[in-house]
């Protein structure tokens, strides 16, 4: 078990170090998130009463789109530089690679989501500084990454590459998007915890199911 965790941690720390030095993924993804948030202002007239209705949608469309962009990078780099073959030759289980990749995908998404909080405040006067929102964002991000890491490993090796990931990813994570938007709406309306309970349960169930299924299925994706 500890060998498994240390192998996963090694994969994760490799990605963190790479990202800390190049800042390639977070930088590009963050600018993209800014642009999505910016363009929404012109997709409709963002007056306060309109933002009250579509605000949660803006936040999560921006998060999901940037999430796809980040997930696409997860394995593209590995494939282009042949790192993946090295990882697969290493005497560690595929689950450890999956866990390491999952953690790095979650980290990238969380950093971007966190950095976007003040942007939503400035551009749309949406205040996301709320414990429930933080919890929902964390749980939703785990769900996105659980499915996204698996599909990203598939998509990166096909001819369609970047096009295939959103096609596979979006329909499967639809329940998480629905839950995240619903919880954010409740937070912004100032409702209590109880209203969000069934949505939180749904995301937790989704996370558990897909963490188990994806780490099992990952083994069959990365097999040569």
């Amino acid at each position, binding site marked *: 078990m500890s060998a498994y965790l240390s192998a996963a941690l090694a994969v994760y720390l490799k990605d963190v170090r790479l990202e800390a030095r190049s800042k390639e993924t977070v930088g590009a993804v963050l600018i993209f998130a800014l642009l999505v948030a910016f363009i929404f202002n012109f997709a409709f007239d963002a007056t306060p009463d309109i933002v009250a209705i579509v605000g949660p949608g803006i936040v999560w469309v921006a998060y999901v789109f940037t999430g796809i962009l980040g997930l696409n990078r997860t394995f593209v780099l590995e494939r282009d530089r042949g790192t993946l073959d090295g990882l697969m030759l290493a005497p560690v289980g595929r689950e450890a690679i999956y866990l390491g990749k999952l953690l790095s995908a979650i980290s990238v998404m969380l950093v971007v989501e966190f950095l976007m909080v003040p942007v939503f405040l400035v551009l749309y006067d949406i205040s996301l500084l709320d414990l429930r929102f933080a919890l929902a964002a964390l749980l939703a991000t785990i769900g996105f990454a659980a*499915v996204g890491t698996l599909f990203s490993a598939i998509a990166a090796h*096909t001819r369609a590459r970047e096009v295939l990931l959103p*096609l596979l990813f979006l*329909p499967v994570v639809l*329940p998480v998007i629905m*839950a995240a938007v619903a919880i954010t709406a409740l937070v912004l309306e100032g409702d209590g915890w109880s209203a969000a309970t069934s949505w939180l349960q*749904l995301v937790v169930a989704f996370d558990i199911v897909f963490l188990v299924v994806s780490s099992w*299925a990952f083994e*069959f*994706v990365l097999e040569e």
Partner: protein
Amino acid sequence: MADRNQLFLGISGLLFLVNLYLIFFYAPTEQVMGNIQRLFYLHLPTVWVGFLAFFIVFVSSIAYLLKRDPVWDRRAYAAGEAGVVFLTVAIVTGAVWAKPVWGVWWIWDPKLTTTFILWVIYIGYMMVRAYAPSGERGARWAAVVGIVGFVDVPIVYYASELWRSLHPELVTGPFAETGGLEAAMRTTLYFSLFAFTLVFVYLFRERFAQQRDDDTLAELRRAAG
């Protein structure tokens, strides 16, 4: 096998003629909706076959990943392809029926949302195969998508139910009251279910045989150099 499938084609073709007779002449015209209700006899069976097909994809995909027998992959592929076709018919007939009855082509009801998501997932399933660098990898990856997609379906349904309780819909379709179906209508429906399932079995077997011949041919080519 091929001869037996010709027999299947004949039988399902005959049954389908009877099915059309039942739908258009035997089943009484519905009083409120009129003739448009007859679409129901096409819609429900195609939905059923679509979901059945994806259940077969799910089971075959697990079996393929565990046993690596190409037979299971051919089963999954044949069922998945037929499933996309049947679900497309189901979604189109549903929309055509909904426009005059509900006044809109589409509503975000849990059944509709789930069916749509299932349809998109299995189009992705076919695309993974098409874009994979080799047949074996395509089979493995598609099996993973087939399993993940099927596991997702109940969660999507539950989420859409929760979503609807948030935004109540006013329309409730006649599907809610199918308990009051007249005897002749029920007979027609059951017959149509049977006929459509047989058409599916025929398509499934045909596609399976084609896949197998394809593989045999590729092997012969390789052997011949």
